[in-house]
């Protein structure tokens, strides 16, 4: 009985209470139901009493001391139901709080797993493997496909496609060659580079991201000050009042009535029940809100900042347009799809995916194929040369790009597209435009946010300004900021916080983690999101439907409204009860009745929240 888990205690005491209530209902012996209530109160109350004792040893009177005193009092004057209910609810609230809190705290662990742990460096002309933290400034690190770059530094040899979405949020792997800067934590997709270490250990961008998440986590614990202050005076106040009244009246029943009626009850559960109902409703509708203060803050948001890649956009490059010069669209796509059949490059895969979608599986692979890193692919298809790649590939192979085609390519690029050129050995046959596309509901969600009273909707991205501008105008945000590193996002958020008001960051990537944590509120898009952002965020949209953010805001406002109703109501009831008991207008039984009714009413009020969104089917 002493080492039972909290969860089991709650289930056990809850079950006993239900059995006892059923017993009452079916007119079983009062003795049995009372006995069950006492057992329930002892089971749930034991840890509360232990905590109270621990505090008392250091002369601290906490809420647990007050609950314990009231429960003991209730047991003494035979109010077994009250004793059982108070302890049960107290433990249940505590338990639910612990459960939601746990989630927010595993973020650091997941981030740490993403950190590079080994590095291959050249020392004494030999390549050796060492712990990533032992790399020193000036070391030369060798990184191959699939490996993580262990340090921040400059490429001194080789070239590669590097996926640094973990740091910058760029949607497409970037080509890095000599003298380019690379970040620790980025992954080599193809190619091979040697990097001279410039920042190592805790100075790397990635380590700083980790540090920022850690700091930001505790930057928030400012809320609930009021309740803490309140309980600091309320708790000892009630005890002293009870004691004084006992001294004056020598009326032990009055004193205990006061203690039991004045303490917990509706006031204690008023806020938690609303919040539990709000969180419950959210969870049922795919919106995970990690705590009560988050609900409060979400309702007050004035600025919403969206990450671009994977949030406003789908996050995967897709073929958006195919243009043939002397050939049909389908012919170009089929040719390019066959050429890219073995390609590992994200652009190549996008082309292949589109070709497979249109024509089914590719069964005729090229006879010969050569990948040219940084340029594209050179294949022999049905005995003839086909090139798929960028301008440099064309130049290297003396393929002429006419003015008309060059003009077309420029236009596509201005619109934020990546243009992939398809040619034979002499002339350009077609151009395939590839881009990360908007989520279907992005535009609609952004415009509806405005009708919810959000003052400013902005977009933050690590991607280049050209792509950023294109997406920003498609989605209709008020402002956008491109080419940002994680710390830049944090700075911009701080700025918006100061200028406009409470700021919400919506994102999905690891690089969003500091921004998610340092904004007043972080919302992660679940389906498309990485674990880290999900863990760091205050609100997680389980599906990748962006419009759920509208639901989350609406639900938060409804919950706060509900919570306020409950708090005001229970304060008024508590005040009236207190006055009534002191004036001896209310005795224990009628006081208890009002007390129970008020508890019932705040609970019923909170339950209304479970129906929020039903009328609109949870959609926008």
């Amino acid at each position: 009985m002493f080492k039972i888990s909290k969860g089991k205690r709650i289930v056990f005491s809850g079950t006993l209470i239900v059995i006892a209530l059923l017993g009452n209902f079916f007119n079983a012996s009062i003795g049995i139901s009372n006995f069950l209530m006492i057992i329930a109160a002892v089971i749930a109350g034991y840890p509360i009493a232990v905590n109270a004792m621990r505090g008392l040893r250091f002369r601290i009177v906490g809420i647990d001391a007050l609950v314990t005193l009231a429960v003991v009092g209730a047991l003494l004057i035979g109010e077994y139901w009250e004793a059982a209910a108070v302890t049960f609810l107290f433990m249940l609230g505590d338990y639910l709080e612990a459960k939601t809190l746990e989630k927010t705290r595993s973020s650091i662990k997941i981030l740490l797993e993403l950190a590079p742990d080994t590095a291959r460096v050249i020392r004494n002309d030999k390549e050796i493997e060492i712990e990533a933290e032992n790399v020193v400034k000036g070391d030369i690190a060798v990184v191959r496909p699939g490996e993580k770059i262990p340090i921040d530094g400059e490429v001194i040899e080789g070239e590669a496609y590097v996926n640094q979405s973990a740091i910058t949020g760029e949607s497409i792997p970037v080509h890095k060659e000599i003298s380019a800067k690379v970040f620790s934590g980025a992954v080599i997709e193809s190619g091979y580079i040697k990097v001279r270490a410039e920042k190592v250990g805790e100075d790397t961008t990635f380590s700083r991201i980790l540090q920022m998440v850690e700091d930001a986590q505790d930057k928030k614990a400012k809320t609930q000050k009021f309740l803490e202050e309140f309980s600091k005076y309320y708790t000892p106040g009630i005890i002293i009042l009870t004691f004084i009244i006992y001294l004056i009246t020598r009326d032990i029943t009055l004193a205990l009535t006061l203690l039991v009626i004045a303490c917990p009850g509706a006031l204690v559960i008023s806020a938690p029940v609303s919040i539990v109902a709000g969180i419950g409703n959210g969870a049922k509708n795919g919106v995970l809100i990690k705590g009560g203060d988050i609900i409060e803050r979400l309702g007050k948001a004035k600025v919403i900042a969206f990450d671009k890649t994977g949030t406003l956009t789908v996050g995967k490059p897709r073929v958006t347009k195919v243009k043939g010069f002397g050939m049909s669209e389908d012919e170009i796509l089929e040719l390019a799809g066959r050429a890219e059949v073995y390609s590992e490059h994200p652009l190549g895969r996008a082309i292949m995916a589109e070709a497979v979608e249109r024509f089914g599986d590719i069964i005729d692979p090229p006879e010969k194929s050569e990948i040219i890193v940084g340029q594209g692919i050179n294949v022999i298809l049905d005995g003839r040369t086909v090139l798929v790649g960028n301008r440099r590939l064309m130049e290297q192979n003396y393929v002429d790009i006419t003015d008309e085609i060059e003009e077309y390519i420029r236009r596509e690029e201005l619109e934020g597209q990546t243009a992939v050129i398809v040619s034979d050995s002499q002339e350009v046959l077609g151009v395939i435009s590839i881009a990360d596309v908007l989520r279907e509901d992005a535009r609609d969600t952004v415009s509806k946010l405005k009708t919810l009273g959000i003052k400013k909707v902005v977009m933050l991205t690590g991607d280049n300004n050209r792509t950023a501008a294109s997406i920003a105008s498609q989605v209709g945000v008020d402002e956008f900021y491109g080419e940002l590193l994680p710390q830049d996002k944090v700075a911009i958020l701080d700025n918006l916080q100061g200028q406009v008001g409470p700021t919400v960051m919506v994102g999905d990537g690891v690089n969003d983690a500091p921004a998610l944590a340092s904004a007043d509120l972080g919302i992660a898009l679940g389906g498309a999101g990485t674990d880290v952002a999900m863990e760091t965020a205050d609100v997680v949209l389980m599906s990748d439907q962006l419009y759920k953010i509208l639901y989350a805001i609406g639900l938060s406002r409804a919950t706060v409204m509900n919570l306020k109703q409950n708090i005001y109501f229970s304060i008024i009831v508590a005040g009236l009860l207190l006055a009534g008991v002191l004036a001896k207008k209310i005795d224990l039984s009628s006081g208890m009745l009002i007390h129970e009714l008020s508890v019932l009413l705040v609970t019923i009020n909170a339950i209304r929240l479970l129906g929020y969104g039903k009328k609109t089917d949870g959609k926008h």
Partner: protein
Amino acid sequence: MKTKTYQLETLTCPSCVTRIEKVVGKTEGVIQVEVLFNSSRVKVEYEEDVVDSKRIEDTIEALGYSILGGK
């Protein structure tokens, strides 16, 4: 003067914060205590010739919070 951070089991109630700060803060030799609620850590600054880490750990544990590690 020394600063040490203790990792505690998950803190669940904001009142834990005041409780630990109050009690550890009153310990002789302790200059400053900060409870990081979200990461469940306690940062203590203390004079090592007046009080040792063991004493601080014992105090926190006596309050009912088990210590998982420290650095």
